[in-house]
């Protein structure tokens, strides 16, 4: 899977979990850029992404992400 493809799928999860069709994310998107993305919905996003890609992140990984790009890198690593 390509990184762009991952971001596309993650985007769909954001739209669903945050319940906002207008959300468009890219590699540099961070929590500051999306209104509904706060510490609480972050947990929901992580759980939904884990479920979607059938993987589990470690606590350290979750803590270290700065933006969508870094999150997608972790997903990419795990899938390959």
């Amino acid at each position: 899977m390509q990184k762009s493809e991952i971001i596309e799928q993650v985007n769909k999860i954001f739209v669903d979990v945050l319940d906002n069709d207008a959300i468009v994310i890219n590699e540099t998107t961070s929590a500051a850029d999306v209104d509904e993305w706060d510490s609480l919905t972050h947990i929901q996003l992580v759980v939904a992404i884990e479920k979607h890609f059938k993987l589990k992140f470690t606590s350290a990984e979750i803590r270290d992400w700065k933006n969508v790009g870094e999150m997608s890198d972790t997903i990419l690593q795990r899938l390959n």
Partner: protein
Amino acid sequence: MNSGLNFLQTNVNKDFTTLKKNLKKDFTGLKKIKVALLGDSATQFLNQALRACAYEQGFEFEIYEADYNQVSRQLLDLSSDLYQFAPEFVIVFESTQKLQHKFNSLQKSERLQLSELKTEEVKNYYHTLNRQLKAKLIYFNFSEPMDGQFGNYSNKTSFSFLYQVRKLNLELMNLSQECKNLFILDYQALSAHLGRQMAFDAKMFYGASMNLSIDGLPLVAKNCCDIISAINGKFKKCLILDLDNTMWGGIIGDDGIENIEVGDLGNGKAFSDLQQWARQLKQRGIILAVCSKNDEQTAKEPFLKHPEMVLRLDDIAVFVANWNNKADNIRYIQSILNIGFDAMVFLDDNPFERNLVRTNLPEVEVPELPEDPSMYLEYLSALNLFETASYSEEDELRNKHYQQEAGRVIAQKNFTNEDDFLKSLGMTSKVEPVNKFNLPRVAQLSQRSNQFNLRTVRYTEEDVLQISQSENYFTLTFDLKDKFGDNGLICVVVLKKEVSALFIETWLMSCRVLKRGMENFTLNTIVEVAKKNNFKKIQGEYLATSKNGMVKEHYARLGFSEAGQLWELNIENYQTKKSFIQLN
């Protein structure tokens, strides 16, 4: 994730993300309930899940959520925000993980007392709350841990944490029987059902101080709402059963009585267990009815002749088998039972019939059923369809009452004059104040009665006890017997002494005994009480709900005159009203 969990997610509950979308819906017109939520772990998600779930049950929760770890401060300090907020319900979720910390901090000898210590603490929460507010406490019991210290040997020593948790859960059950406004949310059962891995997410616990996993939220929230709904008078009273391929395998009309699957034949054991479940529900007070597309004789044959049928004809209060559409048949059943459509559950294996009933009678609860009949019972148990806020011995007789009522309906057809019919019944009524024997039934009737209920005040047993001991009230309870049988306690009146009049705080009656002249008999009794205590006036009030339209004109019909919001009856020249009921 294994397939068992998938099944649960897709059928029993929406997932949290879907459920949460309810929060954007229109809550206008839903009954508002004030709820306080306290936890020793972060409860923001539970808060959202509760509000979203309440929407589906027709309520709007206004939630006060304390910062976490404030459980005892909020409950024990009477000046806390909790008491300012004055909720009707207080939900408390204290976790096994935090209890373990407490256990670890104790001296070895004190550890043996953990369950007593914790029970005392909960008791203290309860009594402090109960003294100050009329709030109900919903307390989560504790999920049983895997004991990593003693292993299986933990069962064999009271020094183990597991032993203390199990003992505590039992003591909480006992405490809730003693404290009428304490309700236990069976978190242990729910987390066992979900699977520990799914109920508790260690990563979320350490990362975000949240105890409940996201996947566990909908089920836990739903069960909290089920308790609150039941206390508010919303619960199921009747189970309507399809027969072919629902209560037995096969089609009685085609396969014949020897070939339907029940008992040992084919998949019959699954159907037998389902019938056992229905029969247990009947004994608990749920009315059973049959709604089947069949000729009546054919449909009744297994109930009469099949040796392995669990259900028999006298288990069924209303038996409808014909070729009419099922929505019409359920309307007919409703007309005999006189309960709301929203108090009915309809079971049918056929998706077409389920959808027909859902479309025509959206208030009737129609569970999807798994395709495989072996799964019916597990599936239905997990839905928690029959939550209740009370249980009394009289519940066991309910089915019988409805069968007797069907007998009266037939007898009435022989009389053209209603008075003659009423006379022929030979009715007697025992009138007495609330006492310790009828107290559970009085509380229950206040929770169950929706239609003939003038002010729809819901009482818990604790409330009834306080009223019955108060000098400011008179209470009257009425039973009704006739030649067809004993209806049991069917009417409750609570009278409040006010300066200028006797105020009818509650007048409610079971709809089983409509049109027997019970209203006149009751008023005659109220007037007697008023006169004996030197009141010259009786006041009543009608508070409209979506269900009590039938008593809108109740006081007008009885000769009261309107006085602002209230109805008044001057009793100095009261003419005793006609009644065919003898005082017993």
